[in-house]
């Protein structure tokens, strides 16, 4: 909890409680409208699970939050700070979006560890070269983080020598190294062999337990039910239903959600 507090601007007390606020987000790829006006608020300490079938727009929504995808329209507020956008949805203030991105840490489906650097180098890269943390301090912290995700002995190994599960855990360590106020997980276990999923989920579960704010796009329904305090079901670019895990999984109201849940469990 204290790590999340440290990087959230405290100029506006009520807004600082809102870690992420997405308002009326639209996104089209050419003629295809992927997001049709999605709104979502995540408060500090929330674990929001975003579920939905393939093509429902859940990854696009997550990637729009840090502008890896450029929204077509809408408003995105991170930690009380509205992201300045051009009329076409691209961020208009590069310094602002770069600064905001350093507070959001993303974990990708394909891990995306930098292949030409060892795990240790991957973890210290952003602290040292973007956040300008003294190198010795960053290295010390990186060893702690790698230890924490169970890769203490792999610090000098290159990503290609590791299993998918190990790479993803290293990617989580890399994300933790920036002391993010919000962590974005984009289907973190979808590219993993079934027997490797558990080790990654264990790490994410620990992060949720310590009160980190997280948005999690996932196909692991059991896991979503267990760690999330809010679940959002997307269907064809709209939020079809949302609520507590007990409501969404235990007592789904929409027919589509019922169908979806029966098809994935």
């Amino acid at each position, binding site marked *: 909890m204290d790590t999340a507090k440290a990087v959230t601007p405290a100029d506006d007390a009520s807004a600082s409680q809102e870690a992420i606020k997405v308002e009326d987000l639209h996104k089209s790829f050419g003629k295809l409208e992927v997001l049709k006006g999605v709104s979502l608020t995540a408060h500090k300490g929330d674990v929001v699970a975003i579920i939905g079938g393939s093509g429902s727009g859940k990854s696009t929504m997550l990637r729009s939050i*840090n502008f*890896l995808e450029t929204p077509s329209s809408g408003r995105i507020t991170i930690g009380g700070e509205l992201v300045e956008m051009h009329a076409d949805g691209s961020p208009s203030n590069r310094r602002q*979006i*770069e*600064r*905001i*991105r*350093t*507070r*959001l*840490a*993303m974990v*990708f489906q*394909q891990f*995306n*560890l*930098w*292949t*030409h650097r060892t795990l240790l180098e991957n973890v210290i*890269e*952003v602290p040292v*070269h*973007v956040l300008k943390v003294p190198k010795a301090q960053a290295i010390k912290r990186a060893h702690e983080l790698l230890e924490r995700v169970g890769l203490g002995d792999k610090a000098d190994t*290159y*990503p*290609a*020598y590791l299993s998918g599960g190990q790479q993803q855990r290293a990617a989580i360590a890399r994300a933790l190294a*920036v002391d993010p106020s919000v962590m974005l997980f984009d289907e973190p276990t979808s590219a993993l062999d079934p027997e490797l999923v558990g080790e990654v989920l264990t790490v994410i579960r620990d992060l949720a337990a310590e009160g980190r704010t997280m948005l999690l796009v996932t196909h692991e329904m059991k896991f979503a039910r267990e760690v999330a305090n809010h679940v959002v079901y997307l269907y064809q670019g709209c939020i079809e239903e949302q609520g507590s895990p007990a409501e969404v999984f235990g007592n789904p109201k929409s027919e589509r959600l019922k169908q979806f849940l029966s098809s994935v469990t």
Partner: protein
Amino acid sequence: MIDFRSLMQPHRIVMMLVFIGIVVWCAFSLQWDWIPKYAPLALQGIWTTIWLLVVTVVLGFLLAVPLGLAQAVGPWYLAAPAKAFCTIIRGTPLLLQLWLLYYGLGSLFPQFPWIRSSELWPYLRQAWPYAVLALTLSYAGYEGEVMRGAFKGVAKGQLEAAKSFGMPRLTMFRRIWLPQAIRNVLPTLGGETILQLKATPLVATITVVDIYAVSSRVRSDTFIIYEPLILLAVFYILVAGLIALAFHWLEVRVLGTDRRTS
């Protein structure tokens, strides 16, 4: 290291004996008495060839990086001229480029009094700046094309990860994109550098005295034809081998511990 037993197979032994025979025959039947007289000049020629190669490869590569980047991701007003430059350089003979620069530019310059009176004039009157320029542009043209592919070949997720952490664009380029692009093309660059070595003799045609020019001088002075040419071939093979070794070492050092994921 070399497996000694694999060298001891009959056909290998025969080939080695043939080779030794040729060397011995060359040493005793051919004429080598001119060597001491021309040795100092040859050393100068070797030095010229080597520094021409190193300087033009380094400068050419420094030019190739922006040329490749402009073509890979630049706006059209940068991509189009870069593409045009690479196409023209790759599409015309180096000899022609060299002569156009030396005889064209070189004969244009003296017509301008301000150039003749400038500090640079003592250099512009000589041939080597034109050789450096032509070879640099040539290497830049070929490697610009190579680097275009190299930049494009870096996996999108690698850059996306950097972007997602708020890494500024210049840092991303310096820390992630360029290192990965160079890794992808190190083997190609090694081959291209050997090609560049073998392009250097062309400078002899504009009066630069490289090692090839020295061998020509020996031939015209003494009418000894084969001996200088044989030595010349040995020299180029040795240097090409050294380049190959150097790049191999680089590859092992840089890439050896970094097998690429799919």
